[in-house]
């Protein structure tokens, strides 16, 4: 019984691929020609694909959830004799061809017989344009042994060159070749948090024209303020890191530069300025990058921010964040410096307008009032959407953040700022 492949048909109007939603048959099932066998989701709709043949399903070549391209084999059917193979014989009483000594029936477009009852090997026909044939002759390549990668199995120049190249290497002992040529590798499926990250980063980097500005901030005084605040914080059960200060500074500067806290509605061509600052901050967790969100950060005092950072970071590490705690951010901070990088350039968290990167705190000599002093320094990077923000505006914002951090009095002055 001949076995034929069922290929994903060209189901029209620019459809190039589809996702297998559901198989309506299983291996071993008998199917009738025109009987629906699979549901496929295309860019336009979910459609039922009928079988082009009557026979027995020998193998399903694609699983539910797989994306297959038009023309890709999706199943193998053992057809009965009255199948399309008969048609071909009638249709093509053609002139015999040299390469085709066996006189096998010509394959139809969508039917590639891959074996026959007699167990004959596949198709002997060689498909190659003259230029490729000449090349093959020059290189001494036997075209019948080359696998064509062109349309409908046509052998291309590259196929011949690749085959010739492989032939050159062949004389070496095959085991050794395999060892040398083989690269040890492992395949990790992109899923879950990592998949989300991958998709969002592609979106950010392909849609948003990023521009960057970097400032060096002297936080020596801020660190001493933190030391002085520590007992008070501990009293309130808060562990005070440097991140809440930077958050405070960013939120305060946003009051003066509200466009930093905005997003672009591309369809309407409008910038949406957000009155609330929902602050996302990147957390490196064992299962991937998470960005929990402090809601209404513009209304919260330093201690409250510190509390929430701690709580959300813990939840992130334990994978216990609720959906509500990871969405709706309007501006984000990446504190990669807590791990170690001196200067990093973060990618915007779409659809936000900017992201602030905080580098590692370094102790370095700086000249102050004509004297060399040991100072604590940190690089702040602002990556911003250059469709929304001008370089000047973004820089002025970053300079303001710097001023606030270098003058902690400005940062913490005001009702409720410490709460």
């Amino acid at each position: 019984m001949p076995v034929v492949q069922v290929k994903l048909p060209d189901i029209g109007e620019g459809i190039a691929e589809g996702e297998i939603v559901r198989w309506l048959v299983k291996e071993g099932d008998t199917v009738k020609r025109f009987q629906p066998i699979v549901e496929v989701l295309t860019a336009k709709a979910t459609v039922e694909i009928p079988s082009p043949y009557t026979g027995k399903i020998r193998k399903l070549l694609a699983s539910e959830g797989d994306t297959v391209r038009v023309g890709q084999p999706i199943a193998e059917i053992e057809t009965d004799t009255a199948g399309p193979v008969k048609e071909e014989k009638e249709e093509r009483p053609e002139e015999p061809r040299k390469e085709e000594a066996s006189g096998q029936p010509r394959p139809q477009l969508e039917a590639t017989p891959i074996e026959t009852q007699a167990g004959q090997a596949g198709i002997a026909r060689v498909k190659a344009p003259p230029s490729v044939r000449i090349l093959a002759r020059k290189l001494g390549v036997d075209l019948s042994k080359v696998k064509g990668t062109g349309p409908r199995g046509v052998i291309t120049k590259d196929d011949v060159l690749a085959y010739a190249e492989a032939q050159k290497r062949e004389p070496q002992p095959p085991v050794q070749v395999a060892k040398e040529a083989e690269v040890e590798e492992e395949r990790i499926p992109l899923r879950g948090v990592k998949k989300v990250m991958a998709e969002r980063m592609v979106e950010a980097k392909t849609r948003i024209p990023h521009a960057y500005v970097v400032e060096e901030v002297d936080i020596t005084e801020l660190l001493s303020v933190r030391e002085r605040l520590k007992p008070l914080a501990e009293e309130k059960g808060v562990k005070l890191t440097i991140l809440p200060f930077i958050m405070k500074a960013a939120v305060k500067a946003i009051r003066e530069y509200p466009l930093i806290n905005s997003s672009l509605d591309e369809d309407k061509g409008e910038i949406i300025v957000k009155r609330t600052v929902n602050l996302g901050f990147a957390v490196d967790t064992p299962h991937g990058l998470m960005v929990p969100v402090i809601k209404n950060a513009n209304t919260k005092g330093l201690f409250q921010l510190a509390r929430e950072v701690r709580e959300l970071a813990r939840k992130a590490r334990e994978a216990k964040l609720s959906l509500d705690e990871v969405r709706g951010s309007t501006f984000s901070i990446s504190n990669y410096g807590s791990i170690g990088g001196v200067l990093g350039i973060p990618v915007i968290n779409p659809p936000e307008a900017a992201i602030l990167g905080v580098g590692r705190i370094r102790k370095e000599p700086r000249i102050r009032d004509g004297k060399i002093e040991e100072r604590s320094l940190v690089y702040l990077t602002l990556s911003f959407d250059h469709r929304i923000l001008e370089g000047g505006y973004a820089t002025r914002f970053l300079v303001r953040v710097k001023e606030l951090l270098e003058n902690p009095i400005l940062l913490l002055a005001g009702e409720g700022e410490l709460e």
Partner: protein
Amino acid sequence: MEVLGSRDILNLDRALGLYRVIDEDGNPVAGEPSLPDKLLLDMYTYMIRARILDGWLLKLQRMGRVALHAPNKGQEASAVGATLALKREDWLFPSYRELGALLVRGMTEEEILDRALTTIDDPLKGSDFAIYGHRKYNIVPAPVPVANQIPHAVGAALAAKIMGDKIVTMTFFGDGSTSRGDFHAGLNFAGVFKAPVVFVNQNNQWAISVPLKRQTAAPTIAVKGIAYGVPGIRVDGNDVIAVYTVAREAVERARSGEGPTLIEAVTYRLGPHTTADDPTRYRGEEEVKEWERREPLRRMRRYLISRGLLTEEEDKALWSEWEKRIEETVVKVLEKPPLPPEVILEDVYEEPPWNLKEQMKELRESIRLLKELGIELE
């Protein structure tokens, strides 16, 4: 049966009402229609054939054998009923959703499939942007862009009038088409010059995803005719007898020199707009269910059985006979060879200019070379 009633063109009742002969369950609304039994059975048979063929075209599209299909399911009565009112010498200017009309004109399933599969026997030789048409049956190829056929039908009708031919043209178009300029120009011109044309609007409630309420602020489509001095009549498009009755009246009016008529056949597209459409994205299941109850075949079958023209057994036999015949036709057509590639250069000039001749030569040479290499052309 004077459906159009008085000669008063501006009869609003006809344009706002809904003319019906049998109700949704197949019961006569006001007495038995006085039509020959054979005609009533023919109406039903044509609808069955259209329904079965429609299913095949959808299936063949899903197999990659037909490029595109606009499903007819639910609209068989309007196409069949209206076209049955025409005479052989009349001309049809269809849209792309009137398989029943093609069958009534005499086109066979095989000829329709030849076109859909662009086999060697395709009467339109594979030309794109024309759905169905056949010179033999006075069917002008349907254009893909909507409403284009309206002015064509008006022009042809006017030409016939000028030449003194006693023929009528009939054109089909959807509710979406009534928003096109072609609809305005066509109806206006036809009204002014009393062109012998019948406009059949298949108001199937949806122009792809645009509902009727977004198409017009007018209470009905039929009422639009009045402003052009064209009588408008609204009919239940799922009642094949009612459609036939008003169409016959309109055809007679046109033939006797009284000018055009606009028929609004109120129907419903039960399937997707085309094979590239997913209606679940824009309309609810409830609505579809409601219209499934009113679909034309079920209704006509009930009527024929209650009138004693058909038994349940005869009905089953009728269906299986056509299912078998059409499947055999499908299998036959699938085995036909495709059109030769040369046809792409035909039918433009009577005597092709040098550049086309040169192209033809190159094409033949390429085909010969490809054949030699064993590469098949799609």
